[in-house]
């Protein structure tokens, strides 16, 4: 932008902010970062002012408030003082925005990641079997439904396609 930047300002660039956001995780699923969850829509930097644009997952998700607070604290902790967090509704969040890394982390945590290509063929995150059945479309949080593996007989959460 042709603006003269001093040493501290040079630290404030998009990738540095994204890196900070990598450290903020979903409070309900503490293995996945808000970035990998796909709720960070943009990071805008004007001079030394940062705007983080986020979008809610489910409209009633109580974690969203917590996430906003955590982003706030993470930025403060890294010495970013001039910022705002803006919530936008449109375009509506979709699990398509979840990164491959995020999906892998969910699976390792024991939650079957969203599978838009074969929604009737959900793989058990414990034993890998595809011989599973839906128990309830509504699970422990708004974003998950409840499944059971018919091979290892373990119940598990499935992160719904949205």
């Amino acid at each position: 932008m042709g603006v003269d930047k001093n040493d501290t300002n040079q630290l404030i660039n998009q990738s540095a902010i994204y890196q900070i956001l990598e450290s903020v995780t979903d409070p309900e699923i503490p293995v996945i970062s808000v970035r990998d969850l796909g709720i960070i829509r943009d990071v805008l930097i004007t001079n030394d002012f940062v705007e983080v644009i986020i979008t809610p997952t489910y409209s009633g998700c109580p974690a969203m408030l917590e996430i906003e607070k955590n982003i706030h604290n993470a930025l403060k902790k890294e010495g970013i003082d001039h910022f705002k967090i803006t919530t936008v509704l449109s375009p509506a969040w979709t699990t398509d925005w979840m990164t491959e890394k995020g999906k892998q982390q969910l699976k390792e945590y024991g939650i079957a990641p969203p599978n838009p290509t074969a929604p009737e063929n959900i793989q058990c995150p414990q034993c890998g079997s595809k011989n599973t059945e839906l128990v309830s479309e509504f699970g422990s949080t708004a974003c998950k439904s409840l499944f059971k593996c018919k091979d290892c007989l373990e119940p598990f959460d499935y992160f719904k396609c949205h």
Partner: protein
Amino acid sequence: MKDQNRYNYVIQHADNCLILGQRLAEWCGHGPVLEQDIAMTNISLDLIGQARMWYQYAAEIQGEGKSEDEIVAFRDAWDYRNVLLVEQPNGDFAQTIFRQFLHDTFSVNFYEMLMNSNDEQLAAIAAKSHKEALYHVRWSGDWVIRLGDGTEESHSRMKAAIEELWSYAGELTKPNATEQKALEDGYGVDLAALKEKRDAQIREVLMEATLDFPQSTYTHEGGKDGTHTEHLGYILSDLQFLQRAYPGQEW
């Protein structure tokens, strides 16, 4: 207020979401089985989340610096604009299911059509909520079928629920002056077109549930203009108590 009609339109839908969300929350801890208890509270949460988006927009249109909480807590029954259906008591599980099904078949079509609104914020709220409504209508529709096409007992309860609640179905799709103007101005939904789609959907589910599509076209109405059944006052006394006793409390 610059745009009273738009405000009223938004408040109608905000109140629908809030009151039904509150009703469903009454099931928390009382569901017939754990999974369905969780389903009802999940749907309740979605509806209250949708209500928040609507109220935030209402506050913006109103432009008096009021919060969404103030709009919810400091209006009395006659200023509420929800349809009579959503304030009806939970009754038994069949009654809750049919009330939900009537609401969901309306809302899923409503949001789908509202995505074409010339008001960007309404279109955004619609796109966000539509995804959730798709889940809701699948759940309530599945239960109508399961209870209707279930045992003798569940069939008769579902039938009784339809008899009890059908006379509240018409208000959803019968436009009042607010909705008529919203349609003329290009930000509202054409309820006549919606009714056709909705009725077809209801017919299909009832047929699969071995239940008859009701013939009666009589409908109770008035909620959308502030005339409510006795039930709303009781809901509000629960819902508003804290803010009335201790104004300005926050989470």
